[in-house]
């Protein structure tokens, strides 16, 4: 049997380090807001001939006179994604024809133009949704464990769930901030959805472990020794925590390999969050439970 309690300070310490690193990362690098969150234009085009990012960027900035232009290219080298300040459908059409003149056959794939008001609204709503999901789940856990009061009262299960989920969301976000700094990836609505989904999934494993702790507290001979109960419960549920996450990881990986490229960051972020979430329910939530036990 793996002795989790022996190493609990190591795991909790690691989590503290990761959380601090994430806060530093978010503070230092910040997030590149996507057009749907700050307003602006997103324009995806496919070219017939190989073309460089600098060529397109130079053309848009110098010849057309667009501001805040960002250009990225996908792996095929033929599909270009342009981000810039907002412009209208009329301008879009005229830019498209000048692009065709300059670069030959160009196909218009996607065009999004979003006013700043919508962006602000989405940000506000996202924050509210985040708060509701966190508190909603924690309250539910506190409610679901209401019959367990000895030796840890049920609202503490809720608080620990809250802390663990926040930990998962924060580390995922911190990693994404660093990633965005490195590669220029922007956070958009999908990022927010991914964070919420991570929270929603991560709680599954936490519930599985807590549920076993709840059961063992009612039936086990060692009910007085919480550390022992927690350790036993983690060991008993280890395989199922791992396997339930693994099936999710399997479909996430197939989505990354085969799925539409517009979803790849979304999927990757959920994959990262799933791994962190599984880790945290075993190595963070359970040890925390022994820490909050009233002496």
């Amino acid at each position, binding site marked *: 049997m793996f002795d989790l309690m022996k190493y609990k300070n190591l795991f909790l310490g690691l989590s503290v380090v990761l959380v601090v690193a994430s806060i530093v990362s978010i503070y230092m690098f910040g997030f590149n807001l996507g057009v749907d969150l700050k307003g602006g234009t997103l324009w995806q085009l496919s070219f017939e001939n190989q073309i460089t990012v600098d060529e397109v960027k130079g053309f848009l900035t110098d010849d057309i006179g667009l501001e805040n232009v960002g250009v990225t290219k996908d792996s095929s080298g033929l599909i270009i994604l342009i981000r810039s300040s907002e412009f209208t459908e009329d301008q879009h*059409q005229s830019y498209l024809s000048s692009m065709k003149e300059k670069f030959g056959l160009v196909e218009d794939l996607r065009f*999004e133009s979003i006013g700043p008001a919508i962006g602000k609204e989405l940000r506000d709503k996202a924050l509210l949704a985040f708060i509701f999901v966190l508190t909603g789940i924690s309250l*539910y856990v506190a409610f679901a464990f209401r019959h367990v009061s000895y030796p840890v009262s049920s609202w503490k299960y809720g608080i620990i769930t809250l802390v663990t989920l926040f930990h998962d969301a924060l580390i995922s976000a911190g990693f994404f901030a660093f990633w965005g700094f490195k590669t220029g990836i922007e956070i958009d609505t999908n990022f*927010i959805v991914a964070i919420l989904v991570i929270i929603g999934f991560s709680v*599954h494993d936490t519930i*599985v472990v807590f549920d076993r702790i709840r059961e063992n507290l009612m039936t086990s001979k060692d009910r007085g020794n919480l550390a022992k109960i927690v350790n036993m419960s983690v060991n008993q549920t280890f395989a199922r925590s791992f396997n339930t996450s693994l099936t999710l990881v399997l479909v996430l990986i197939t989505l990354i390999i085969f799925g539409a490229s517009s979803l790849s960051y979304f999927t990757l972020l959920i994959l990262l969050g799933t791994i962190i979430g599984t880790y945290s329910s075993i190595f963070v939530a359970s040890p925390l439970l022994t820490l909050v036990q009233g002496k």
Partner: protein
Amino acid sequence: MSRLRLSIFLLFILVATAAGVLFVHPESSYVDKYYPWRLGLDLVGGSYLVYEVDMSQIEPADQDIVMNGLRDVIEKRVNLFGVSEPRVTASESNGSYRLNVELAGISDVNEAINQIGATPFLQFSEITINSDSENEEPEFIPTELTGRYVKRASIIFDNITNLPQVFLEFDGEGADLFEQLTGNNIGKPIAVFLDGELISAPRVSEKIPGGRAQITGDFTIEEATALVERFNAGALPAPINLINQQTVSATLGQDSLQKTVKAGVWGTLAVIIFMILYYRVSGFYAAIALFIYTILTLSVFKLFVTMTLAGIAGFVLSIGMAVDANILIFERIKEEIKKGASKAVAMEEGFNRAWPSIRDSNLTTILTTLILYYFTSSFVKGFALTLMLGVVVSMFTAITVTRNLLRIFSRK
């Protein structure tokens, strides 16, 4: 349940699944003819437009009526443009009114935007000459009389000059407003604005009852005809402003659809292989239940949901979670057997004891999807909806279907 009832239950599920396969199969042309998949804009290509409605000139009590009017007018306009199944919905957020227009499978978005936006906004204004200032700048004071009150428009030609004019007939309320307006401004000009541009400022010679007006602009016949057509389709009761536009080409939509469906198929296979390798015979039953799950869920989607890219992604994720309940149950059964329980007892215990954690974790997911559904835009809604429906169906297949499969086939 007796063995007979079990068999009937499973037979029923099997028949439903077989029917489901025929129903959801994308190439079963017979079903598709009468009941095709409904695909969202991001998959078939098309445009999603969001307009903000300027309600500054509208009394608060009238705002709902104006919104309904706007929606009807824009629907008519879009229909004229020949879009199949256009959707125009009104929404309100933070006190600002929005109109969301979905144009599926449209090729010329620019033209559509022009058609929608160019709908004339007619406004009558009073003119006061500010005598204090030296250059005597006229000041225009907008009145309540707008295109909203136009009942009918037609084109007429001036008797003398033979120039085209636009003849307007107001409805009852509009007629009263027009009578009032002309009565207050006898001997003075009133200004007629079209889309914010002054097109004429005729001098009022007398109070005009009956709600008929002629607009003498500098129109060509084409301009006047176009204007009349638009008025008859309905003038916009309030000005609108395009604040959000998302257009996806049909090529990109097709590509996304194919790729994500492919990912879903491979993902399902990967999960099935894992379950059979790890849990052997039980895993095989879970795999059957998973197959039934995908077919039943897809049938529910086909009946009630417009599929979007995010929606398919949500469904693929739900496949990875649908076997979670099976895993929890099977692990529990293993434990009970280790403790020395007989196979049959272990099985029933496994299902019963795993239930609280299955219930709790699925309810928290449903809670998350509900919050996502109510707090986000239309594209995310699809994701939340499919994920939620998936969780609900999976509770049935992973528990009830697997349990009965095991009961009937692993008796001995």
